[in-house]
């Protein structure tokens, strides 16, 4: 979707606000929201693409107004409700519905180090046709999906060159909607800064993006 989250190349967002010796969390509630997301993620009712898409669906003025972990809180609640883990009434009342069964946590403390060390690779050990080769000139398709996509607006229609083939990775556009992983080749693609931004950019500079096979066409 052409949302406000797709910020690459925008002007008017103000100066970078750097904080020295920044704490990992600024408020205890931020830490709890972070950890709740990880712990509830262990129920496997959603995936990282659905999580990102849920935040992107926050109306643009609200997305810009609220803080990072408020967006996480929003996404957590939406996904828990959608996944049937809680009802909206329970969230509003802060109490389980009368007679609702008691579950056993999907993630217990002793399993945390193992879960974190293992991670969740996005690569898939399946065969998929690589339509492009390293060194090949490509064009990012000029597409405007209304759902989740990881092809930023600023490269659509632009010419680039394949630098690397990362192998076969889960495709976010379908995975975010639980329509399947649709694994396909993911490439590192070099776009010259002048191709993206015109004469104002340095002729030496370039931007590299990771781009899925479906986002590309032959140049």
């Amino acid at each position, binding site marked *: 979707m052409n949302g406000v989250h797709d910020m690459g190349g925008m002007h008017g967002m103000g100066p970078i606000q750097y904080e020295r010796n920044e704490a990992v969390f600024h408020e205890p509630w931020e830490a709890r929201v972070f950890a709740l997301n990880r712990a509830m993620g262990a129920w496997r009712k959603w995936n990282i693409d659905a999580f990102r898409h849920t935040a992107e669906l926050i109306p643009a003025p609200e997305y810009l107004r*609220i803080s990072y972990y408020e967006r996480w809180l929003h996404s957590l609640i939406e996904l828990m409700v959608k996944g049937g883990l809680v009802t909206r009434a329970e969230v509003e009342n802060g109490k389980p519905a009368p007679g609702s069964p008691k579950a056993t946590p999907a993630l217990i403390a002793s399993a945390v180090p193992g879960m974190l060390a293992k991670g969740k690779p996005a690569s898939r050990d399946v065969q998929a046709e690589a339509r492009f080769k390293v060194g090949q000139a490509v064009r990012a398709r000029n597409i405007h999906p209304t759902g989740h996509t990881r092809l*930023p607006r600023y490269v659509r229609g632009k010419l680039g060159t394949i630098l690397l083939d990362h192998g076969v990775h889960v495709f976010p556009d379908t995975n975010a909607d639980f329509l399947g992983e649709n694994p396909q080749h993911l490439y590192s693609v070099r776009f010259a800064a002048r191709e993206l931004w015109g004469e104002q950019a340095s002729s*030496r*500079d370039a931007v590299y993006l990771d781009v899925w096979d479906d986002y590309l066409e032959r140049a």
Partner: protein
Amino acid sequence: MKTDTHDLPQEKQHVHGHQTVPSDLTLRVKALESLLVEKGLVDPAALDALIDTYEHKIGPRNGARVVARAWVDPAYKERLLTDATAAIGELGYTGGQGEHMIVVANGPKLHNLVVCTLCSCYPWPVLGLPPVWYKSAPYRSRAVIDPRGVLREFGLVLPEDVEIRVWDSTAEVRYLVLPERPPDSEKLSEEELAALVTRDAMVGVAKVKLPQAGGNL
């Protein structure tokens, strides 16, 4: 070398990214947590363990050890630049948001900068959780269109003949910058070198400097 941005008073620095934090957020999150605990969906001790991990165990000191090792061990550097996930794993740093690592090396005529224009992708096992500025609109919007201007805001002015490569983390591949080893650091041990390496240098918004050469960010 610092711009005014870096010297904002503490109160002002906190405004951004926390513009309108409602006073009830603490209560809302507490209520949500107790609901989830009461339903048996969450183990509060697991939450404590997660928070402790990212506050105390996983952070930029990990990445600094990777960088220092690459500076003193050419064979390790070679492995790091060809299979970063495995080479970083050799030092014990693996897992969430570092499953697919790429390390990009700076040089005298080449500078790398990492951003996530779409959200906040960042290599957690080596750098920990990202700082607010990395996740915020000003950096996300401008790093790709005006990297030289962004670097100037961080106090880093690069000559025109230095090539800049910006890495926009659009997939699950995560990027770590291998900064240049500072000049006159030959006598320092691996541990002393690691102490010089900053988070900012590994994102690409700073260089690594010896303390007497003016310090680092």
